[in-house]
């Protein structure tokens, strides 16, 4: 174990943890804005109740996304100073744009929304939640553009050992980013849809005998539509990403498939030993006969190009995370499509379906985590593909003891907060949309969403 290994662990742990909350922020923000819009349009009290109920859950989660996100922005400089110096000219710009164009909007308008229930005109208040939710989605675009540049650097030249940006537009329209942005945002909507479905499933089970689950049924139907649509988007952009991977990141593709040698009409491996002929070639190129490069042959070519070294990422993690991502993600989407079919034209939710919907909370969270492992471990041993190795990116002046200290602190803190967040969310879900009776405006001086 040296400082490099621990720094990698720390980045992995803090990033995966951060991304448990981010997708919920991205998707649930829009969902809550949609609920409030429905209330605004129809005036039906149940939409207001749902807005406040899911709004509260959204805020509990939002706090975690924000505070774990701050760590991310400092961590490049703290642990990866060599990386930061090399990429800052290019990589820093989208980060600065993210703060200027997204974070200010998100945080300011969310503050206005939380505290503005009685102080803003209804329409302005509704606009605030939309501005905040759009801000979250815009932030995803910029950070993913920065991330895509690490896998497929464009719009730059290397001068004196540092990347210099030559074309901001190229960085922002990197094809890798354009495929990745809808893929990740779509996945975020699946996570958020799954979350809403699990909550509604729980409440439909609880209200089954009393028969007042109509409100939950409506919310669940909306979430089913959202999840299914997002599923189509994620599948389509996943296909685009695979084709780009064939061109731009052949080592990742080969590792994800366990393909060792350059192979014509390459088969798609379901699990080790079970293969469907020519499907990988077809998925990667639309041509079932095309040759897909294999890890061992790529290794030989990379050694010739970049010098001695191991250019293969961890084969086990990359192979299995790819499968976990697809299976867990698709089963959530499948569940939502099935749910839409079974409850078509006012058919009730069968109890077993409501129970199954509880799974739609953990399934997509596992899928997005696996997706990031595939994406970022599959990029190894590079931080910037073909330009900078992870081993050369770490801060030279930060000692093993320092990283061990911070990793321990973050792990303990994050662990405690995970427990607190789970307890808090569970308690509020259980409590339900209790403040059902709308108070007259005069008594609503202290809105339920306030501190």
């Amino acid at each position: 174990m040296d400082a490099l290994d621990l720094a990698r662990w720390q980045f992995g742990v803090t990033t995966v943890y951060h991304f448990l909350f981010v997708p919920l922020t991205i998707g649930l923000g829009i969902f809550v804005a949609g609920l409030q819009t429905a209330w605004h349009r129809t005036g039906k009290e149940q939409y207001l109740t749902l807005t406040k109920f899911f709004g509260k859950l959204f805020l509990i989660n939002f706090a975690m996304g924000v505070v774990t996100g701050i760590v991310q922005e400092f961590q490049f400089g703290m642990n990866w100073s060599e990386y930061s110096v090399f990429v800052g000219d290019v990589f820093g710009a989208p980060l600065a744009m993210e703060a200027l164009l997204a974070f200010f909007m998100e945080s300011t308008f969310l503050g206005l929304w939380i505290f503005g229930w009685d102080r803003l005109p209804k329409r302005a208040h509704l606009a605030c939640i939309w501005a905040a939710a759009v801000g979250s989605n815009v932030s995803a675009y910029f950070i993913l553009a920065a991330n895509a540049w690490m896998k497929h650097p464009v719009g730059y030249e290397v001068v004196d050992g540092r990347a210099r940006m030559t074309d901001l537009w190229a960085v922002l329209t990197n094809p890798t980013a354009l495929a990745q942005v809808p893929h990740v945002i779509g996945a975020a909507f699946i996570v958020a849809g799954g979350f809403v479905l699990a909550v509604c499933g729980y409440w439909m089970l609880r209200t089954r005998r009393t028969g007042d689950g109509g409100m939950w049924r409506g919310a669940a139907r909306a979430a089913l539509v959202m999840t299914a649509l997002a599923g189509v988007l994620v599948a389509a952009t996943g296909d685009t990403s695979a084709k780009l991977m064939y061109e731009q990141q052949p080592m990742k593709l080969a590792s994800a498939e366990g393909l060792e040698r350059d192979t014509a009409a390459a088969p798609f491996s379901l699990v080790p030993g079970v293969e469907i002929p020519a499907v990988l070639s077809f998925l990667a190129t639309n041509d079932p006969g095309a040759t897909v490069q294999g890890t061992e042959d790529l290794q030989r070519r990379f050694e010739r190009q970049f010098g001695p070294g191991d250019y293969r990422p961890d084969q086990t993690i990359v192979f299995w995370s790819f499968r976990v991502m697809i299976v867990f993600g698709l089963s959530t989407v499948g569940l939502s499509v099935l749910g839409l079919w079974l409850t078509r034209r006012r058919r009730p939710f069968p109890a077993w379906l409501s129970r199954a919907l509880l799974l739609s909370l953990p399934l997509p969270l596992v899928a997005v985590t696996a997706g990031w492992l595939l994406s970022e471990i599959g990029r190894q041993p590079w931080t910037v593909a073909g330009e900078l190795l992870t081993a050369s990116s770490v801060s030279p002046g930060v000692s093993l003891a320092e990283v061990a200290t911070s990793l321990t602190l973050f792990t303990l803190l994050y662990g405690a907060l995970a427990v607190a967040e789970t307890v808090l969310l569970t308690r509020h879900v259980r409590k339900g949309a209790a403040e059902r009776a709308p108070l007259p405006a005069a008594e609503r001086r202290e809105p339920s969403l306030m501190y």
Partner: protein
Amino acid sequence: MIELWFAVIAFLWTGYFVLEGFDFGVGMLAPLVSRNAAEQRAGLETIGPVWDGNEVWLITAVGAMFAAFPAWYAGLFSTFYLPVVLVLAGLIVRGVGLEWRGKVTNPLWCDLGIVVGSAIPAFLWGAIFASLLFGGVAPALLGGAFTLAVCALHGAVFLALRTTGPVRRRARTVALAAGAVTIPVAVFALSSLGTAPALAAMAALAAATALIWRRREGWAFTATAGAIVLTTLAVFMELRVRPLPGLTLAEAASGPYTLTMLTWIGLITLPFILVYQGWTYWVFRKRIKVPA
């Protein structure tokens, strides 16, 4: 262009310290100026709608450093590794404390997180910048004590400005006490800088204390904000040639293309940000009524 971006980053840090400075102060002092749960809540509500937006000034300052001066960004945060870790830990517990305290049955843990998570960064930012300028432990402790005291004063004045009744009265008393502590600390801390803005900052802190004595809360707040602006200005004037020991500004900077692009983006976005953040303060301009 390099000078311009140095000025932009100084501006962003200034905005951060002015705005988050009173958030930290309010966070630290809320339990001190309240005698019951409703008062405590009212105290924190003064920053409720704005603290998260204020914190984005930090995110922007750091993001802009990364983009415009990568070597400065990387050198600063890897050099002050453990203090920065503690700042982040502080910001984490403070953030969740503020967001969660209204949603838990017993907000004790949240309140503890808010106090500790406000005090730690308030102290450490001063320690980090003082250590950057002068090196060594003693200046760091003095710098930390200075920013901690100034945030307390700034926050107490803000509380007095934004509340009514007993909370407002206690906030004024706390502000006077904070002023009495801040002025001698400021004399030591700022005289080591010795420049005109540093001396003016000292005068502004004295003026703030006098103004809060005379119950001129708005002017007192202007004075504490002015003191923070002047102090930040004094610090960044010192950093102008060498933002880090052994690193010149020109060496740290990104290329002209990137700086030009950043300038356009900043010119387009900053006016909007200032307008809508300003609007937030306008919407929530009324004093928070403390229930009797």
